[in-house]
């Protein structure tokens, strides 16, 4: 189809080609931004755990996949739409997060940098194998044709409904997180703990219990990311590490501990991937990584890093 619209060479065809190139460029850019917003949503949870608890969760990507599988089960059992299933999946994920933090992560936080890395690395392997054991290695996807198959054509630029919804949810969750951190008691606690955990305890912050709530919130955010991702792309038990990689790139690119930096970082990765895919359809992720590495070399502290204290 693309070939048909590409005009043959010659003076007369210059204008149509330009118009086509322009609208294709805009289309790639917009779709890249929309995809990037989903990557940003992947990174949201990671950004919060890193910012508040100084914890890097290697199992983050696998927990996204867990969310996708839980959604597929809930959809089957309760016979609900993929998005409606979030009413069940988000609370379930909150509880899983709370339990994980209390039973596992709290024992390793604050000891050394490596302890949480090792524990979550182990968790990642356990989760992948449990998923494989329970759901087999076959790929699945969440069926939601009434949003995944709908698109708009705006001035020659085609945009899908699902990416639009994803981006809206992502931006909404970032805004919500920002509001919670900026102007609620929980937000003040999270900033205080991030600043100085031992003094936070002196003003009555029960950090172990608070971290459990934070991880619960992170997992609820993961639930949203998981559903939107799984409607878009088929998933399998081993899909986690790639999700982790994109999340991590978004977080690091934006600057550690900077919420909106993570959002912007996700956008950059998404745009880079889609422009890369235009060069060659298999090279999308590669270009994402390339841009990440280049920007990391140029600004190792991330684009919007907090000023070091």
């Amino acid at each position: 189809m693309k070939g048909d619209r590409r005009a043959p060479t010659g003076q007369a065809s210059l204008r149509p080609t330009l118009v086509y190139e322009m609208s294709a460029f805009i289309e790639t850019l917009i779709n890249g931004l929309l995809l990037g917003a989903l990557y940003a949503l992947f990174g949201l949870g990671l950004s919060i755990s890193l910012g508040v608890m100084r914890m890097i969760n290697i199992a983050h990507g696998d927990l996204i996949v867990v969310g996708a599988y839980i959604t597929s089960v809930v959809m089957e059992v309760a016979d609900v739409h993929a998005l409606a299933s979030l009413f069940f999946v988000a609370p379930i994920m909150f509880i899983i997060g709370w339990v994980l933090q209390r039973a596992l992560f709290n024992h390793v936080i604050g000891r050394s940098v490596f302890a949480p890395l090792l524990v979550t690395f182990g968790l990642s392997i356990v989760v992948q194998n449990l998923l494989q054991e329970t759901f087999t290695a076959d790929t699945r996807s969440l069926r939601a044709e009434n949003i995944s198959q709908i698109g708009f054509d705006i001035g020659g630029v085609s945009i899908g409904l699902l990416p639009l919804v994803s981006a809206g949810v992502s931006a909404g969750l970032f805004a919500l997180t920002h509001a919670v951190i900026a102007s609620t008691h929980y937000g003040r606690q999270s900033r205080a703990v991030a600043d100085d955990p031992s003094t936070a305890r002196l003003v009555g912050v029960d950090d172990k219990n608070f971290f459990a709530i934070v991880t619960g919130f992170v997992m609820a955010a993961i639930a949203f990311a998981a559903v939107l991702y799984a409607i878009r792309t088929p998933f399998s038990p081993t899909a986690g590490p790639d999700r982790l990689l994109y999340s991590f790139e978004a977080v690091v690119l934006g600057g550690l501990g900077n919420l909106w930096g993570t959002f912007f970082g996700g956008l950059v990765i998404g745009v880079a991937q889609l422009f890369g895919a235009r060069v060659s359809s298999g090279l999308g992720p590669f270009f994402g990584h390339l841009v990440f590495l280049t920007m990391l070399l140029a600004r190792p502290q991330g684009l919007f890093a907090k000023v070091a204290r």
Partner: protein
Amino acid sequence: MLRTRSLCAGYGLFQALFNVTIEVALGELVALIGANGAGKSTLLRSIVGSVSVAKDAVFLDDEPIGAASERRQLKRGIALVPEGRRLFPSLTVLENLLLAARNGRRGMWSIDRIFAELPILGSISTKPATALSGGQQQLVAIGRALAANPNFLLCDEVSLGLAPLAVGDVYALLRKVRSAGSGIIIVEQNVSRALGESDRFYCLQKGRVVLEGRSEGADRASVAQAYFGV
């Protein structure tokens, strides 16, 4: 009445305190003096639960309350102003107070009352806590502890690094807190200031109480001897 009885504490294999017994009553200001490394900070941190101690090492009105978390002790009405003030840089002055107020107890020290007692904080309440001068920070740090409405206020290195005028402000505030009925323990490097402001004092040396008594008319020579251990 808040007291410790034969309190022993340390960090790992290092024992910092040996059988320390002190007490402070409501409305009383007690000074802890002693050279660096004598164990003054460790003693305060033991009482509020930052350093673990035996359950029967700390008593509140004859109830053993040792071995509890900082949060529990704060709820019981014991608050610590840590050495170096340790305000949260990501929080404004007001937010620093709000956090403690929400986690602490209800009582006379509302946020409004604290701002009324410290009018200087009013104009800087929305500034990040670290944008203040050392003296202002110390007032906010004490205000933050007060916001939790403690019956017993423990202040570590209350005047360290402050200008003389600021030290005056800090003690003026502490006198108000005492006359409002709270018991106060201060750690103070300046021995004559400590004795001048306090009702009673304890002198620690290498983790033991080597001298205690009423501050008024305390014999400076014996205090100096206890302080330096000569």
